[in-house]
């Protein structure tokens, strides 16, 4: 189906089902229960889950396939966001032009950055992309304040020109919409003790994510994708086979930059504001982590990684001392205090510490990410059957 192999179609359908039913899946706890605060099925978080999924899917096309580790992809996300918000200020609050321009601008910017950075490979490349991203961040904060809003950032104002939209009447706020359907529109469904929220913005972002995922499958299975894997595997052989590695890596760089721009545009479409901190190096590091945590070079990995990180961030940040006290309440007092003291630095505001540790753990113990981990676990159960030496499915194009 869709020009995909059976296996890839299954994968796509699984992801589609998961995203469509996310409002149910992410809201397992009934309203008013003690665990309800760990529900993740509210629009804002679900939107971020799929948008960062797009970001990671794109990053994976560069890093997963070619092995070029960019440390500056947040810059493209940021540039995309700024472009989108300007569309909303100048043209219309409809999200379509905003998203289209964010992809375009991020693509052009990544073409420039990639053209320069790809003159070198390996560590040099990583450092260069990092330097570019930090430069963009500094620029957005200082010189480009007229365009970026500097420290305060940008958001649509009532008196922006917006030449395509009808003028807003007094008291009306500019709201992002798709031909009139506002992103914030939600329908709430109460079933028993549960409340499920279906949000227009989320479903639009989810559809874009599914399209982006579908496109990445096509890229992975295409001759272009195979060349990118060849770049990672043996660039010397590729050159001596009459193929020019540079345009291949540059194309991958630009495609991943456009994915980042798309994610940036969608972030603005959902929450109409942008600030320079979106381009900070930690944001670039985060997408790297999402990709490796899920499994770089695998199709589903980045989606899983992005979901996992954003979900964890949400949950872990919410845990505070009171919650910990509830959890450890069954223990004797002394031991309870001890556990709370141990755990406390890692939760709430300590999320970054957990993130850093997770980063190290994954690189040290699970370089293949969750997907490889899952395969290993599955392998343990299969061990009893006769071992078939069928090669790893993801590197052999199935027919």
């Amino acid at each position, binding site marked *: 189906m869709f020009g995909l192999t059976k296996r890839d179609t299954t994968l796509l359908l699984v992801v589609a089902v998961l995203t469509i039913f996310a409002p149910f899946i992410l809201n397992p706890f009934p309203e008013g229960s003690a665990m309800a605060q760990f529900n993740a099925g509210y629009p804002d978080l679900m939107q971020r889950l799929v948008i960062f999924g797009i970001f990671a899917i794109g990053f994976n096309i560069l890093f997963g396939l070619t092995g070029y580790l960019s440390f500056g992809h947040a810059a493209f996300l940021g540039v995309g966001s700024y472009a989108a918000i300007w569309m909303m200020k100048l043209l219309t609050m409809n999200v379509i032009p905003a998203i289209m321009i964010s992809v375009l601008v991020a693509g052009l910017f990544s073409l420039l950055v990639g053209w320069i950075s790809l003159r070198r490979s390996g560590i040099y490349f990583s450092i260069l992309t990092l330097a570019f991203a930090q430069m963009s961040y500094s620029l957005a904060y200082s010189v480009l304040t007229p365009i970026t809003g500097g420290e305060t950032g940008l958001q649509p104002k009532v008196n922006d020109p917006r030449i395509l939209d009808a003028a807003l009447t007094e008291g009306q706020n500019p709201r992002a919409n798709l031909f009139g359907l506002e992103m914030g529109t939600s329908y709430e469904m109460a079933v028993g003790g549960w409340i499920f929220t279906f949000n227009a913005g989320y479903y639009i972002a989810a559809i874009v994510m599914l399209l982006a995922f579908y496109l990445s499958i096509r890229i992975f299975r295409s001759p272009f994708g195979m060349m990118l894997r060849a770049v990672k595997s043996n660039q010397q052989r590729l050159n001596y*086979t009459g193929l020019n590695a540079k345009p291949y890596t540059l194309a991958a760089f630009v495609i991943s930059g456009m994915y980042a721009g798309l994610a940036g545009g969608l972030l603005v479409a959902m929450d109409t504001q942008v600030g320079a901190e979106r381009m900070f190096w930690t944001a670039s590091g985060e997408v790297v982590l999402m990709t490796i945590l899920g499994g770089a070079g695998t199709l589903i990995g980045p989606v899983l990684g992005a979901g996992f990180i954003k979900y964890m961030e949400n949950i872990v940040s919410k845990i505070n001392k009171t919650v910990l006290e509830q959890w450890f309440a069954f223990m004797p007092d002394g031991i309870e205090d001890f556990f709370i003291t141990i755990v406390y630095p890692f939760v709430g505001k300590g999320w970054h510490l957990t993130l850093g540790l997770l980063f190290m753990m994954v690189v040290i113990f699970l370089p293949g990410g969750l997907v490889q981990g899952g395969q290993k676990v599955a392998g343990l159960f299969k061990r009893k059957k006769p071992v078939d030496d069928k090669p790893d499915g993801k590197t052999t194009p199935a027919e």
Partner: protein
Amino acid sequence: MGILEVKNVGKRFGGLQALGDVNLSVAERTVHAIIGPNGAGKSTLLNCLVGKLIPDTGSVMFDGQSVLGRRPHEINQMGISRVFQTPEIFGDLSVLENMMIPCFAKRDGAFELNAISSVMSQKDVVERARHMLDEMNMADKQGMHASSLSRGDKRRLEIGMCLSQEPRLLLLDEPTAGMARADTNNTIDLLKQISEERDITIAIIEHDMHVVFSLAERITVLAQGTPLVEDTPDNIKGHPKVREAYLGETQTAA
């Protein structure tokens, strides 16, 4: 006029004159071996032919066109393929994919943004890659990871990948280095068969005299960056200068 004409090529690394003044002519459809002791400049010469190094002086003409200043992929597209000392293949890819990449390079040139259609839908390339694997007697291994092949099979695959591009000149850099005797003999047979059946010129750099004398039609002896003699294998065998510079050394070393 040979297919490959090397004239007055010199290359210096800092204080070291790696190549002095090399003149070499490789005739079309022959097997030409370049031998010489360690440090004679064989690898430097080879690197100058494929665009990895740019010589300081002289000219390198392939089929009437200069290769100097061209990058490796451009030189490859002109019709020169290179086999490395340790087999250079795409270890993370399957054997079939390894074979498909040069077929794509042959069909689409140095770059083609073919990012939407599936690899397996490119019937002509798949067909051609399978055919080449067949010819290399590796059809049964097409699904394997290339890195899991035996050393001899890696070598076969690499040679097959080069041949699939139908190059006019095949450069081999010590293709049997580190191989067991049986693998070496297999490789010799393979190369013999290739040179007999195909419209191809082979230039080979080799240490192993057994390989050289089984294959070569002409031999150039390099010593200290300059060609000592160039002649047929029979004449080279008896040449006193060569014995002194090279054969004597290997005999005592062996």
